[in-house]
């Protein structure tokens, strides 16, 4: 190859690369990517690998066999679902009316948004700690209910899954609400106006226009809420019955480490947790893509 040919082909290579967006700028992304590779991708792969090497050398599927073979461990799956599914559903559907209501009003909106961020930032641990006193048989909630005669016996909300559910509702609802609010604000109000000129009452507008357009966003909100609830940990320990009906997957995994130093088993449980989570998310997302999920702005604008 002559010198001219060589420089021509290197020019061709450069322009091909440039066409596809590859140039020196991409170096900027490397530190972040390396960090993810080292501290996220690799450990996850390593953890999965580890899960197939149980401590008692009982073969690749040893951990999984002992997990599914032990009813106490198996039940943790059911325990986790029993808490996470209802909580996510309630959070998402309770968020809708409030988001619809607060969509337009400007006055109280900022205050409520700010107030709702508080339980989210205080975090699960503090809320759990507070609930452990508030929901106690002689805590303020039971006292009020007894004093007003609504109940005659104190409600047993602690040391079972009710306490855990309540704490997840408190920390999860604001998140679901703020997300739903942002989705509903993205729906062009002109469409609802158009519907009203065609004779639709407020309920009909919601049913035929607002809600169908909101559903894709609700699916995402549900997934995010579910993922958080599915991995509930501190409140299960603090408020629930970690040896009984609050023996959720995360607790099982942490116990494998703290009592038996069995990182391999803990990794196996994490793998199971991750797979189940992704399965639920995948199902919801597939259902969502069957619905309409295009632009919500209603036409060339």
């Amino acid at each position, binding site marked *: 190859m002559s010198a001219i040919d060589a420089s021509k082909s290197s020019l061709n290579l450069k322009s091909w690369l440039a066409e596809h*967006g*590859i140039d020196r700028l991409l170096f*900027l*992304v490397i*530190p*972040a990517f390396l*960090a*993810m*590779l080292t*501290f*996220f*991708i690799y*450990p*996850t792969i*390593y*953890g*999965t690998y*580890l899960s197939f090497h149980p401590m008692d050398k009982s073969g690749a599927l040893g951990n999984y066999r002992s997990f599914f073979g032990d009813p106490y461990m198996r039940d943790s799956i059911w325990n986790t679902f029993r808490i996470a599914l209802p909580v996510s559903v309630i959070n998402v559907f309770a968020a809708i*009316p*409030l988001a619809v*209501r607060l969509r*337009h009003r400007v006055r109280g909106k900022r205050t409520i948004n700010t107030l*709702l*961020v*508080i339980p989210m*930032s*205080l*975090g*699960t*641990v*503090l809320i759990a*700690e*507070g609930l452990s*006193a*508030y929901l106690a048989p002689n*805590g*303020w*909630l039971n006292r009020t209910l007894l004093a007003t005669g609504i109940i005659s016996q104190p409600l047993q909300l602690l040391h079972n899954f009710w306490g855990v559910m309540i704490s997840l509702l*408190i920390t999860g609802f604001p998140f679901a609400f*703020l*997300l739903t609010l*942002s*989705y509903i604000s993205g729906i062009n*109000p*002109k469409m609802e106006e158009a519907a*009203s000129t065609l004779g639709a009452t*407020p309920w009909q507008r919601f049913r035929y226009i607002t809600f169908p357009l909101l559903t894709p966003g609700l699916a995402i909100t549900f997934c995010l809420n579910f*993922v*958080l609830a599915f*991995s509930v940990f501190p409140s299960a320990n*603090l408020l629930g019955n970690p040896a009984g009906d609050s023996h959720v997957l*995360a607790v099982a995994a*942490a116990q494998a*480490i703290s009592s038996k130093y069995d*990182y391999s088993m803990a*990794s196996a*449980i*994490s793998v199971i947790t*991750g797979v189940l*989570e992704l399965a639920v998310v995948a199902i919801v997302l597939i259902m969502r893509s069957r619905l309409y999920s295009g632009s919500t702005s209603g036409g060339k604008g």
Partner: protein
Amino acid sequence: MTIQDTTEVSNSVSRKIFVKSPFGWVIWASVAFFFINLLGVIGTVVVSSFGTEWFDGWLPSGWTMKFYTTAWHDYQVPNLLRVTLQVALAVVLISILVGTPAAYVLARRDFPGKKLLMLSFLLPIMLPPITYGIPLATFIYRLNLGGTLTGVIVANTVPAIPFVILVLSPFIEQIDPKIEAAARMCGATTRQIFIKILTPLIIPGLLAAALLVLVQTVALFELTYLVSGPGSNTLVVALYYAVFASGIRPYQAISAMAVFYMLTTLFILIVALRYVNPTQMVSQARSVDTK
């Protein structure tokens, strides 16, 4: 006048929807119920921290501040505050330094493999900390960083970097690339463009990202719990341990500890809210969706 028109119209139509219906009242009642209970939960903690004894009855039988001093010393709160702050600031610094260039590249360029790269950045946010925390903890212990401050910092940067990228990308996308082209036509080098043009424009985004990472790191329990040791606990982990070992210490001290934690979080939150809109705190999820 026309802009006023459209907001007036949509406000007007919706006001008619809800002002006169019982539906509106139900909503406000539910919101009030939620907040009253929330207040009760927080209130129980605060009140019990000031009480001498509280066995039965609506309120403690006496009031004292002594448990605050107990907690301050027994739980080594000043140490905890120092550690928490160190971890949080380190995480913010690292994640911003590493995440901003990455966000820039992702916002401006399309290249083969971009989708995979984005996935690797999104997964730590979509998966809850416990799920990847255990493998991560295993790895950190193998690196002999278990129980150290470095280990805690490393663990917390894993969700922080993607967070920064996710928050900053829309900011950068909003900046018209033609501005950079115009700067180039005026003769600026890439470095000059970054320093003199881009950085000033994305400062609101940087601030938002930094504050959100700060809030998240202080409140994040699972990751720190899995990798920390006695000298490297953050406030939230120490609180958890305090509640668990509740047989040893008086519960009022635990409540006082909880109040310390709450005050720290609320303080950071108030600072954060001066610069960040509450809805931005969840906009990460929205932008996940649109990607």
